[in-house]
């Protein structure tokens, strides 16, 4: 939620941090690697937290974060600065997460093993954990944005650059799949 708020708010253009960030972006465009390192340090926590929504292993989170920043560096020329840099960064990070999840066929680790261990009803929780593991990664991606980030369809569409209809269809499909899986278990 905190992440969602910070993304929604962004940096207001014309403020000192916004001007500083614009200067950093401009320096990065000229190939200034020191400026890029400062830009990475400024946003690394946000990117790790977002990637951490979808991946549990620290190595995976770091790889996705690194891929995000490398993409940012390579495509900096395409950033038009109409929207805050954070919005663009979020979109790039979400796309990196989505692509990685899409390539993963079967999830190898449970979604939340710590919770499962601490649960008052471990059997039910483990069962649900297992069902969520069975869900296709792309369905889990949408459900994590809806339930984890608590973003609306419109917010997901805006941040991913997808159409609202596309998000709606995917959300409907993911919920239907989850419903079917839960019903099968009863």
């Amino acid at each position: 939620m905190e992440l969602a708020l910070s993304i929604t708010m962004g940096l207001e253009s014309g403020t000192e941090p916004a001007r500083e960030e614009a200067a950093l972006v401009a320096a990065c465009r000229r190939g200034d690697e020191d400026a890029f390192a400062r830009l990475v340090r400024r946003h690394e926590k946000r990117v790790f937290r977002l990637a951490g929504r979808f991946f549990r292993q620290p190595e995976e989170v770091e790889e996705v974060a690194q891929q995000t920043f490398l993409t940012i560096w390579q495509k900096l020329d395409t950033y038009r600065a109409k929207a805050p840099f954070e919005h663009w960064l979020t979109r790039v990070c979400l796309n990196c997460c989505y692509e990685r999840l899409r390539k993963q066929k079967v999830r190898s680790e449970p979604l939340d093993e710590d919770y499962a261990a601490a649960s008052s009803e471990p059997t039910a929780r483990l069962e649900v954990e297992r069902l969520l593991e069975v869900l296709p990664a792309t369905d889990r991606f949408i459900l994590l944005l809806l339930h984890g980030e608590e973003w609306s369809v419109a917010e997901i569409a805006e941040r991913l650059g997808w159409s609202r209809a596309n998000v709606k269809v995917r959300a409907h499909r993911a919920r239907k799949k989850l419903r079917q899986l839960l019903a099968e278990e009863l």
Partner: protein
Amino acid sequence: MNCAQVRKLLAEEGSDVPGVEIRDHLDECPGCARFAERLKLAAEILRNHQSGTEPDAGFATRVVAALPTSSADLLGWAAMRLLPATLALALVLTVWALAATPSPTSLVEQALGDDLWSWILDSPGGES
């Protein structure tokens, strides 16, 4: 409202605050009550799913070190991208050169033929 309708509504709208009709159904139907409970659990797991991984102090340095900007990197990248094309071109040129080069036997045959023509043309009355 039947079980399928209740479950669809629960999945679409969430099970946190079900309507009166749904609540009545859940009170009477243990299967759907169990379904609602599992759905709530799934939403809770998704909501709390966060690896909690934090970047260490060297992360930015590692990212910068991985940037493909130096000329050596670009050269290496270009070499890797051009290598298959270069190898294919070399192979085609080799095949072409081998096919175009006459074999020793054909050279001998050609020389004998030339000698024969020279003898015919140079011999007296050969041109008439």
